[in-house]
């Protein structure tokens, strides 16, 4: 170190060398920037002693089995999306319900954090020997499509929209026909008119599959809700951390969110400029559309409440928690 003038003199947080393997899938993208931020923060404060080794490409596990890998202790941390396997963590699925009133990332992560603290949710992660650290944020869904722009409720009748889960129910409520295809097939289907539109996280998912090149319209801040994913650690690995690392991890989370949100904002700014240049028509939310969506989403929320209640969770209480926290989060802004 004597010959390396660039090296930090001493770490801000002293501690042993710890290396965590983190199981991720796909390539580095907006969705993974939160973990990237976490990794940078920890490395900086410990002078590289607390290292997160991010394993992209699903080499350690497919996304559907990340939570199994955590229970096995195969890796120390992973991103887990309950959406891929609802019944593995039914209570956490509450956060992935469609059309939750969480219009901003800040509102999302505040509500997610409070929710994950609830004892019933905690118990659920305990079953998998997993400890949630933070959420991997995903933007709200919008619908983008080509052909005649659906400016009124009646225009949605018969439109073929690729949507899954709760979003499929929302599309049905508008009179559209939902279907689900694998992501790589969507571009082609949209181009040849097999489908008229796609409900996806806005903006980045549309641009990564280049759907915007084909499209003529996009819904304007409908905030159809999104899916919640959790960055979780294996509980034994977490407990084995020295106290100063546990504290540091907690301290790193806000910085990691800030990093991810900044990354999304940068991506969105560039994308919005491109959408502007392409002349995408923005479809405003009308009152009757809003009413139709709300009418449709309530039964789907209720069916989640009934489902988890039958599994022994306090369904209504959990749902009310989401709603009250969402209200607080929005009021606080």
């Amino acid at each position, binding site marked *: 170190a004597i010959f390396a003038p660039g090296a930090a003199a001493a770490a801000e947080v002293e501690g042993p060398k710890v290396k965590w*393997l983190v199981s991720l899938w*796909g390539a580095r993208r907006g969705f993974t920037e939160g973990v990237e931020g976490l990794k940078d923060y920890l490395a900086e404060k410990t002078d590289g002693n607390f290292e997160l*080794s991010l*394993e992209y*490409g699903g*080499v*350690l*596990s*497919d996304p*559907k*089995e990340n939570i*199994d*890998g955590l229970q*096995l*202790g*195969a890796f120390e941390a992973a991103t887990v999306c309950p959406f891929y396997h609802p019944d593995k963590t039914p209570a956490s699925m509450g956060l992935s319900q469609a059309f939750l009133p969480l219009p901003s990332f800040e509102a999302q992560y505040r509500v997610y954090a409070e929710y994950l603290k609830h004892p019933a949710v905690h118990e659920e992660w305990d079953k998998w020997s997993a400890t949630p650290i933070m959420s991997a944020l995903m933007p709200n869904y919008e619908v983008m499509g080509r052909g005649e722009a659906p400016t009124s409720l009646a225009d949605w009748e018969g439109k073929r929209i690729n949507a899954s889960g709760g979003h499929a129910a929302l599309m049905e409520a508008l009179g559209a026909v939902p279907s689900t*295809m*694998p992501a*790589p*097939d969507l*571009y*082609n*289907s*949209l*181009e*040849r*008119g*097999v489908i008229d539109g796609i409900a996806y996280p806005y903006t980045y998912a549309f641009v990564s599959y*280049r759907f915007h090149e084909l499209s003529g319209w996009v819904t304007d801040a409908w905030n159809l809700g999104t899916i919640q994913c959790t960055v979780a650690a294996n509980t034994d690995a977490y407990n084995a951390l020295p106290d100063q690392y546990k504290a540091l991890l907690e301290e790193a989370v806000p910085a990691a969110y800030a990093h991810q949100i900044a990354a999304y904002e940068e991506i969105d700014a560039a994308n919005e400029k491109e959408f502007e240049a392409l002349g995408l028509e923005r479809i405003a939310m009308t009152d009757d559309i809003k009413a139709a969506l709300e009418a449709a989403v309530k039964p789907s929320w209720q069916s989640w409440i009934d489902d988890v209640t039958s599994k022994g969770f306090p369904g209504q209480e959990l749902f009310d928690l989401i709603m009250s926290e969402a209200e607080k989060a929005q009021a606080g802004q």
Partner: protein
Amino acid sequence: MDPITLGYLGIAALIFLVLVGVPVAYAAACTGIVGMMLLRNSTVAIGLSGIIPYANSGHYALSVLPLFITIGFLAMHAGITTSAYDAARKWVGRAPGGLATATIFASAGFAAVSGASTASTAVFTRLALPEMEARGYDSRLAAGVVAVGGTLAALIPPSAILVIYGIIVEQSVAKLLLAGLVPGVISMIVYLLVITIVVKMKPGLAPLEPGVSFMEKIKALPQVSGVFAVVGVILGGIYLGWMTPTESAGVATAIILVMALFKKIGLRDFHAGLLDTVRTTVMIFMVIWGVMIFVRFLAFTGLPGTVTDLVVNLDVPRWVILLGIIVMYLLMGMILDGLGMMMLTLPVVFPAITGLGYDPIWFGILLVKLIEVGVVTPPVGLNCYVVNGIRPDIPLESVFRGVTPFLIGEVFIIGIIVAFPDLILLLPNLMN
């Protein structure tokens, strides 16, 4: 032990197991399991590998594989193969090396309904080889033609191996299938040129065919409609975006099934064909399982990242590295089985290739071509083994000898693929 060293040892152990005759699937899984036991612990090794047989079978994109394989066997029973050969013979029989030329044409036609190169070779060893011999063709040339013609099946869609490549490296299967058509046709043309040149140099190898009347030629055409139906559905369905690759394969299977039923396929044949299809499907999936377990182990060692950094930062022009990779595959292809070879090397080679800025779709085509050269080169050339397996009276050496002139053609084809990536990407780019 240092994980990177353990990674290299794992690769060495795997090669050893494969060479002494352990099936590729088990060899890869065994190395991966033992490696994970050493690197983590046995709970992790057992738990992680135990998920794979379930998780890596239930995969939407891989569902084209059993369908592609079913199409191949039904096509044979629907008489499509025989009629394709008959039509090709009537149309091009008068050309130099006419029956050999017809065999290549018919192989290309069969390639359009078969996802697999050994199947294609097996069919034409039974169908075309005896006919060529009966007309006084040199048996080495005839054997070489059926062995090489079979390889067209891997490029011309549908192609099972391109699908597997697409899944492993997360690229669009639809684009890969479209990309295979042009190099498949180029390969066919080069094989025809090789036959013409060889026969011109030694006319004794292939006597001329008697002429056929024009009416007879026309009459032969409707019989090949089955081939066109399948090609039309698969390419058209994917290209027009009406269907996913799985869906177009499903529809093509249904069409061929109806045709086979019209030809009154027997229950016994049907039964045997189904069992064959299952066996082949399972064989592919077990290799996938084994390799996925091995990949988990490699990820724990950190080896792929290290190798990628090494290759990408080599201080040589990128074409030198590409040339090195091509030569490596040609050498490995001499002794290794193609599917296993591809899957075992991709986790390390693919990141390096994309790191160097090469197009992943284009590389898939190049890789499949290299693998297909491997199935006709000695000492381990699966297609040549198939010819020799069905016709033990033709020695393996003779089959390899018959393939030799085509290998010069293969070098030429590889050159075209490397030199003109735009030509390879023509169809997939049209899709956008």
